[in-house]
């Protein structure tokens, strides 16, 4: 038994244990904590499988962003829900949910086991088409060229999620400032950290997007880093997030998907919706990724900030 095999075995056991703890725990906060641990373990598993793009996305979005969304959702539930235990109906719903999840997990396991372990999958097709894709990273080529409509729809779904979060606002707060007021001391540690980290974060975010054409990285990973930096600066009290009625904010939210759609439409005029001419592909992909990064960063940050809950700063 090689050390690598022992490591992978432990990793798989820990991931399953964290998943069981997340769904089996009675304490919701504990479940969320284990969900975040599970996401980080899965990110390490993707690194072990040499899927660095997926690992970055899992760590940033799966563990980090989803984790913080779950924590803030939990805080909202605790603020608003009555303390009554769920009755018989709740138990039935839980059993139905458990059966549904077990069914989906079983189907996924069956699909994974049914794959030919020696099979090359789509790799030969992608390697063959890669010279025409404009970028050297096959993941970026798939996401922004070969299967661009998946990415386009994802970026639009994110916008819909934000609209859904905003629609939870009270009428009086509509158009106001997102989230509760931040109480950070202007000379406190968070304010210092909020001034220290942004330069690093900006460099990392731009690098992730720029390097994404040849190396692991891309708009979602870079956008998540930007969103985290923006939120940190807002939480440290250095800046205030804009009102949800702010026109520059809404323009930033819509710009990426709209530009992506426009590129797709131009492709449609030339013959294929979202089709890219090989000569221009690299420039177009980088432009689309830059626009998407801006919109994804704004959308994710505002998703975490929550629905508008006040009109005064």
């Amino acid at each position, binding site marked *: 038994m090689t050390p690598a095999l022992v490591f992978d075995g432990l990793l798989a056991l820990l991931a399953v244990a964290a998943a069981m703890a997340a769904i089996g725990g009675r304490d919701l906060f504990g479940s969320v904590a284990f969900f975040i641990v599970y996401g980080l373990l899965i990110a390490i598993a993707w690194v072990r499988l040499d899927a660095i793009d997926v690992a970055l996305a899992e760590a940033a979005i799966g563990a980090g962003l989803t984790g913080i969304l779950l924590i803030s959702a939990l805080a909202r539930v605790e603020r608003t829900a009555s303390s009554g235990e769920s009755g018989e109906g709740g138990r039935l719903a839980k059993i139905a949910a458990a059966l549904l999840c077990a069914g989906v997990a079983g189907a996924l396991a069956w699909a994974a086991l049914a794959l030919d372990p020696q099979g090359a999958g789509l790799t030969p097709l992608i390697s063959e088409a890669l010279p025409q894709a404009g970028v050297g990273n096959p993941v970026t080529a798939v996401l922004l060229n070969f299967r661009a409509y998946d990415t386009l729809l994802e970026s639009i779904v994110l916008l819909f999620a934000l609209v859904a979060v905003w629609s939870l606002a009270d009428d009086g707060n509509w158009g106001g400032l997102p989230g509760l007021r931040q*109480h950070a*001391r*202007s*000379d*406190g*540690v*968070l304010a*210092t*950290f909020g001034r*220290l*980290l942004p330069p*690093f974060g900006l460099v990392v975010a731009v690098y992730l997007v720029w390097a994404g054409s040849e190396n692991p990285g891309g708009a979602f990973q870079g956008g998540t880093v930007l969103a985290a930096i923006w939120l940190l600066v807002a939480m440290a*009290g250095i800046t205030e997030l804009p009102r949800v009625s702010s026109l520059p904010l809404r323009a930033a939210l819509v710009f990426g998907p709209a530009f992506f759609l426009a590129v797709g439409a131009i492709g449609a005029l030339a013959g294929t919706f979202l089709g890219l001419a090989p000569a221009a592909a690299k420039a177009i992909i980088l432009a689309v990724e830059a626009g998407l990064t801006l919109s994804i960063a704004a959308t994710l940050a505002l998703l975490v900030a929550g629905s508008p809950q006040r009109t005064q700063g």
Partner: protein
Amino acid sequence: MTPIDLYTLAMIAAGAFFFFAGTLGLLRFPDLHSRLHALTKADNLGLGLIVLGLLPRMGDVATMLKMLLVWVLVVGAAATVAQLIARIALPGHLRSRPKDDGR
């Protein structure tokens, strides 16, 4: 086994010891503030020792600097978060609150 291997082994073992001690403190210490103390001090030292142990194996200076930067950033983040958690856990009358904090 070369001297560099021995050095790396010793540093990583020392780092792992601090991670172990920090985890033990997190599990066994009686209250939040002493647990936080055990966790942050031990984790920072543990990660630092592991980074120092791995440095001579990195080959190029850029990677070494990246690893040191990772350590510095983790120390900064851990110290900040530890301060925030410790402040939240303080009883209300112990939290200093200057007048100019904008509330």
